[in-house]
């Protein structure tokens, strides 16, 4: 790598040196920008009255030879025309106003700005206001509901918690595959991984994009499919998010201060029963393990009075009481400015966030500087550095919520600690029973990330038509994770179970260093072949080098109970991992534009990946895209103001994870023992003959606008088929392995994206914009290696065999949830092998009078929504802005693990009928209607029968079907009210701008799901999607933002 950088730099230095020479010709040059300050490419510049002219290049710059007093005409489709007279100044910069709504310039692959109309594929872009609209600290969450085809899910509302973004469906059959898009900031691919090492999985640490301050972002472009990302190569096979940070503008120095305060609370709690108290089989017992299988509180009080026991308490609503109000502050100061040669922007930001779950915190301090320098007409360079420190105490929401179910409601969970520091439990006078709040107080996981993202860009234009760009990027971070559990305050003191799992207290320290280096050089050549035909050629080369180094040290059994140092641990174990990956890519793109009406682009890229065997590590793939502006080719009815058709195809190749090409031996689990290391053959057999995966995408679209652009429809259909997927195929253990890595499957995603934009009102004082987007994705697993029945993506525990799992089988879509169900009457046995329940049949009732459990796993739902969409309104009236966004997800199911526990522990409201005798509706094995009355309670029923642990524990909780719930929702995602002080008011003071914004998120939610907000998943992996319950609950939040400009 070093060699590359050096040779790259050398050549650039040479270029720099050479650029000081000039051609000695008198020319006029300048930059053409849009009204957002973005460079416009391909703007036509004609000398009035002559036939000569030119177009702007990729940087929006042009050079033209002209006489003094010549008139230059600048024109660009969708923008107004501007004329300028050539004077003594050789630099003429022009700003063009967008004439027609939506006719904008967008950032495409490699950060190249292009007219949207010239693209043969769908691209969507968010501007800085849309990005900060919802005041989300995690940049990924800012995309929620904003873009068709993009699905954002999170592991709940914890501070700094990871979110997951999937574009156009899951692409891979491999349970461990990364299905998220590539993130690129200012030309540098950056890490968005969520590392679970050191216990980070159960703690929901941040995805790394959460490090970035949303207020530093100018635009965020979503490249959804193969044709849009083909130039980026394999790392963007799942799409790409191209982020451009704010940079300084020439002119006076401006200072902007933004200060946001937010407060939040849990937006939805599960319902619980509030009648029955501690005990079992209806018998009161303050020492019982069982929180709610006792009698009613009144009965318990009578019993206690008779037996000289303390008076039982009213029931606390611990599920709500255990959570608090969260709050956060984010302050950002930015300074920007510059002159015609140099611009800069710098910002400093600090976020402190305390979450709703006790002790959950997250802090983020970010410093960024961007600078650009125009050294000469031909040479410019610039760069940016972002330093981030982030992290906090990541709570274990799963354990917290699980312990809340065990906790008896007659004890106050917030009364958790004694004066001596020991735990207060819920039974045996507080000496026993894990207190979840005490758990979070004494069992912590704190991450501390130091991250540097830097980019250097050089741009040299030896000829008017040619520009050479070089970008060098670094994304490096260290992540220090410290997980510890407090030992017992004194020997035998009540303590939280997890603190004692491997001795008396523990410390786990993990240190990670990740470093990604990117080097990218390319050249763009533009030329008018004929007045009607423009040509643009781009060629380039990039190199990517990624290294990971992680060490985890576990120290068990603390000597001093609250000294959380490895030096204080009796039993110490260490494990280490190094991972390296390198990629090289050579790419080119040829674009032709005919009469500003027909646009054709052809790209080709060859990748070399270190992760594939030598013979197969080089692979080439092409893409073609075509855009036709119908208005330029034929006469459109007056109603239609713009019409464009798009078609594209791409075949992207993809490599695999490092180290999957041979057979290896690793340290055996549980070793070292007595200073002896053990070795064992690794369970995974790598393949020396792997070949790259391919994703072939076909995309068609139309962009239609009506009524003077007041109404626009953008429609896209895509069909992406991924073949030769590299999967660890499960094999018989007798092979000596449990998986073989093979090219072993294919799957397809096809779908429709629809965006509707309208401007119902547009007057000088009042504008009202409406955006509606809709996405429907259909997935099918086409093939899986012969002999493999299914691929397990993940599973979630349920009592009495009711664990739910997500598995893939041929011919079925991704994300099916399997589990046990109530058996249906099936006398012919026709439905025995059917994977779906025949809901038309009555329940089968056993001889005991209770529903029979079907132990063959059936498909009970699917974790991927059938469709989702959002409706956004923006209304502006004289400086007052109101916007609100509704979004929905439909046709999606989720396994509610909390619901399963609620059934097992008598917490759910429906268990109030526990003392009733009923007849289950259904038929017995012989087909006759069931008539046997049964008691739902525990122990001996009124009929003298012994019902053991009762219906809910014996039967109900054992049917997964009862806990796979519809997780559809409608929600008011965001409401924002802003007021900007009129400039006239500020004329006399030193303040340039002043504004205030009120924002509300998740103010309203409508869902049939019985647990916390179903948007929250168990975690951020493929196997977490669709499992919820004991998640960090989502929040409803309100923000006040003040911004001042000086």
């Amino acid at each position, binding site marked *: 790598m070093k*060699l*590359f950088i050096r*040779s790259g730099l050398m*050549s650039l230095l*040479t*270029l720099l040196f*050479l650029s000081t*020479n000039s051609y000695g010709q008198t020319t006029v040059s300048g930059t053409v920008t849009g009204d957002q300050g973005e460079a416009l490419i391909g703007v036509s510049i004609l000398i009035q009255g002559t036939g000569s002219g030119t177009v702007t290049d990729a940087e929006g710059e042009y050079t033209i030879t002209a006489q003094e007093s010549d008139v230059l005409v600048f024109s660009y489709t969708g923008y107004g025309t501007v004329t300028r007279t050539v004077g003594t100044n050789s630099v003429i910069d022009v700003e063009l106003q967008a004439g027609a709504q939506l006719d904008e310039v967008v950032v495409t692959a490699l950060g190249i700005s292009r007219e949207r109309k010239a693209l043969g594929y769908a691209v969507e872009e968010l501007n800085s206001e849309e990005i900060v609209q919802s005041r989300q600290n995690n940049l990924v969450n800012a995309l929620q509901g904003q873009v068709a085809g993009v699905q954002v899910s999170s592991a709940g509302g914890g501070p700094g918690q990871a979110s997951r973004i999937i574009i156009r469906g899951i692409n891979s059959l491999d349970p461990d595959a990364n299905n998220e898009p590539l993130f690129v900031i200012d030309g540098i691919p950056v890490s968005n991984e969520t590392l679970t090492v050191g216990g980070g999985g159960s703690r929901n640490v941040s995805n790394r994009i959460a490090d970035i301050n949303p207020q530093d972002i100018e635009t965020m472009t979503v490249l959804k499919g193969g044709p849009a990302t083909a130039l980026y190569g394999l790392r963007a096979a799942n799409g790409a998010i191209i982020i451009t940070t704010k940079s300084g503008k020439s002119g006076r120095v401006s200072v902007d201060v933004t200060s946001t305060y937010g407060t939040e609370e849990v937006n939805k709690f599960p319902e619980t029963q509030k009648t029955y108290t501690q*005990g079992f*089989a209806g018998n009161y017992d303050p020492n019982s*393990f*069982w929180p709610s*299988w006792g009698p009613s509180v009144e009965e318990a009080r009578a019993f206690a009075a008779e037996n000289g026991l303390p008076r039982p308490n009213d029931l606390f609503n611990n599920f709500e009481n255990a959570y608090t109000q969260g709050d956060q502050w984010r302050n950002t100061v930015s300074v920007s400015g510059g002159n015609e040669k140099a611009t800069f922007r710098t910002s400093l930001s600090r976020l402190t966030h305390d979450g709703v779950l006790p002790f959950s915190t997250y802090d983020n301090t970010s410093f960024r500087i961007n600078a650009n320098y125009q050294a000469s007409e031909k040479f410019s360079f610039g760069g940016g550095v972002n330093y981030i420190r982030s992290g906090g105490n990541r709570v274990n929401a799963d354990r917290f919520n699980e312990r809340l179910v065990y906790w008896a409601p007659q004890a106050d969970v917030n009364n958790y600690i004694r004066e001596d520091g020991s735990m207060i439990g819920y039974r045996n006078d507080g000496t026993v029973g894990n207190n979840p709040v005490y758990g979070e107080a004494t069992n912590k996981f704190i991450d501390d990330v130091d991250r540097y993202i830097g980019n250097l860009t050089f741009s040299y234009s*030896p000829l008017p038509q040619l520009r050479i760009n070089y970008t060098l990027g670094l994304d490096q971070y260290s992540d220090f994770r410290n997980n510890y559990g407090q030992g017992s305050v004194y020997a035998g003191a009540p303590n939280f*179970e997890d603190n004692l799992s491997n001795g008396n207290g523990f410390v786990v320290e993990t240190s990670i260093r990740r470093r990604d280096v990117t080097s990218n*050089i390319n050249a763009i050549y533009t030329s008018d072949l004929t007045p009607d035909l423009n040509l643009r050629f781009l060629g380039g*080369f990039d*190199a990517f080098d990624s290294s990971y180094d992680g060490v985890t040290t576990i120290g068990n059994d603390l000597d001093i109970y609250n000294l959380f140092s490895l030096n204080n641990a009796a039993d110490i174990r260490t494990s*280490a991992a190094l991972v390296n*990956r*390198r990629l*090289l890519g*050579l790419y080119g793109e040829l674009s032709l534009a005919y009469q500003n009406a027909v646009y054709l682009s052809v790209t080709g890229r060859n990748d*070399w990946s*270190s*992760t594939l065997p030598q013979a197969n*590590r080089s692979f080439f793939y092409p893409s073609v895209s075509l855009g036709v502006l119908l208005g330029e080719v034929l006469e459109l009815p007056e109603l239609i103001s713009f019409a464009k058709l798009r078609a594209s195809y791409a075949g992207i190749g993809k490599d695999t994870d490092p*180290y999957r090409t*041979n*057979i*290896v*031996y*690793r*340290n*055996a689990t549980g*070793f070292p*023992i*007595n200073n*002896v290391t*053990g*070795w*064992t*053959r*690794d369970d995974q*057999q790598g393949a020396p003959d792997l070949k790259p995966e391919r994703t072939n995408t076909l995309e068609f679209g139309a962009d239609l606008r009506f009524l003077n652009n007041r109404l626009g429809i953008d429609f896209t259909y895509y069909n992406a088929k991924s073949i030769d997927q590299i999967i660890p195929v*499960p094999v*018989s*253990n*007798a*092979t*000596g*392995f*449990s998986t*073989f890595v093979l090219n072993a499957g294919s799957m397809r995603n096809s779908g429709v994206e629809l965006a509707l934009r309208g401007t119902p009102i547009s007057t000088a004082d009042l504008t009202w914009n409406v955006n509606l987007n809709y996405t429907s994705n259909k997935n099918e697993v086409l093939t899986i290696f012969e*002999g493999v*029945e299914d691929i397990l993506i993940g599973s979630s525990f349920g009592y009495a*065999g009711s664990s739910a799992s997500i598995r893939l089988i041929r011919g079925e879509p991704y994300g099916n949830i399997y589990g046990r169900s109530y058996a249906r009457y099936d006398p012919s046995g026709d439905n025995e092998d059917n994977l779906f329940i025949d809901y038309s049949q009555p329940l089968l009732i056993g001889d005991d009078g209770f529903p029979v459990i079907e132990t063959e796993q059936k498909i009970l739902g699917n974790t991927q929504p059938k469709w989702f969409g959002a409706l956004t309104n923006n209304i502006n009236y004289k400086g007052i802005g109101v916007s609100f966004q509704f979004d929905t997800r439909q046709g999606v199911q989720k396994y509610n693990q909390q619901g399963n526990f609620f059934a097992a522990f008598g917490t759910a409201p429906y268990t109030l009928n526990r003392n009733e005798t009923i007849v289950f509706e259904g038929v017995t094995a012989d087909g006759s209607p069931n008539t046997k009355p049964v008691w739902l309670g525990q122990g001996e029923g009124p009929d003298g029968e012994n019902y*053991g*642990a009762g219906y809910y524990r*014996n039967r109900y909780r054992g049917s997964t079907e009862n806990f796979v719930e519809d997780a559809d929702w409608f929600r008011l995602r965001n409401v924002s009210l802003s007021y900007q002080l009129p400039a006239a008011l500020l004329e006399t003071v030193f303040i340039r701008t002043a504004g205030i914004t009120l924002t509300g998120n998740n103010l309203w939610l409508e869902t049939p799901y019985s647990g916390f907000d179903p948007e929250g998943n168990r975690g951020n992996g493929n196997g977490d999607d669709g499992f919820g319950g004991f998640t960090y609950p989502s929040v409803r939040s309100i923000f006040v933002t003040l911004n001042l400009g000086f």
Partner: protein
Amino acid sequence: MKQTILHYLLSACVVVLMTACGADYLDINDNPNVATRPPLDGLLASASYNTAQNQFRVSNGHAAYYVQYLASPNEGNTTDTYLEISNGIAWGELYDVMTDLDDLIRFGQEDGLGRHVAIAKVLMAINLGLVVDNWGNAPFSDAFSGETLRPTYDSAEDLYATIFRLLNEATSELAAAADAPDVRSGSDFVYDGDLELWTRAAASLRARYLNHLSETSQYDPSAVLAAVDAGFTGPEQDAAVTSFTVRNPWAQVADNNANLLLGGWLSEQFIDALNGTTYGTEDPRLPLLTNRNDDGEFVGTPNGAGRQGDGTKTLESYLVLDGAFSMESSPLNIITYAELKFIEAEAALAAGNQERANEAFAEGVRTSMSQIGVDDQSATDYIAAEYGSDDVTRDDIFREKYVAIFLSPETWVDARRYDYAYADFELAENAALNTFPVRIQYPNTETDRNAANVPVVTMTDPIFWDQ
């Protein structure tokens, strides 16, 4: 213009340079965290340690429930009531260990490590024995290579022949291995490289597997006795592992149970056999194995019936951290001198040598007593009360062996050879079968991934030696 051309050339050079050195640049796909050729002492360490752990995995997974050492606290528990189970965890671990042993034998032969190879063959025989005795036919001759995706199955009879072949080869190779490089100290978790003890263990195992054939026409009691003669000569020679990552796995079960992750509940069958209910005399070993309940009694849980109370009181007896087999550092046995004495007694009886049977039986009981911590007087009193000076019977041998090798997966082989004829031994409550199970199912990993080869069986199809 010259400069322009130079520019082009320079940029082209950059690209060519990068591509040219690409080949070396990309050769970084050898995993730096692992080895392509393992240290053979390390393979032995893992395999010897896990061979003992596999005894636990088979037992705690199903065998201890079928022989009613243990019972589930949950009513109608799958394992308790003979519903289809496969113990895929144990199957997977057994094949993991056998894979490592296969590598150890292969690499050891290449490197001339005779000691390692011979020990590996004994360990291979032990693990393969567990596979055959629990599942029957299984992949072996086509296994471990990674060359086939779906290994074929060998018959159980052929696998028994393989077990005896491995033990014979090991015995002769152990005798010839004196000059081979030593086993690194501490890497052999059973005997720390002691070839003499391994030779005795090989003979003891030979006796065990020959004795398994008691119900077949191949049974030859004199061959069993000949193997016994070459086997262990005292309890200090027991094949067992005594060092653990954290603690003995049975101690972990006891510890978990104390922390409400329930398990290790003793069956009513086992408790009643020792507390005087079944045989009239309280066995002095019982208080050293488990706890008394809150009423001061030893109470077992009937298999299939589940817990008696609501879990708030100690109503039953469990594996506990001060029980002889479930202490933090209790030995995790593979085969013991006491077991060998009961094998000897059984074979001697079959060979018509009553006197040898009597002696071996008494030695077996006394060894068990002293290993568990019963004083000599109590042991003597117990033997006098229960057996007096009577000649030992086959029933006596199975009764005492059941207690002496408590928690061993070997007891399930005994139970099947003995047709579950232990006194008062009954089907579990809510049993799904009307006879006792005589094998378990193949795991999903086989039925899903190797469907073409895996035999279709039921849990009532006997293994070949069970007739």
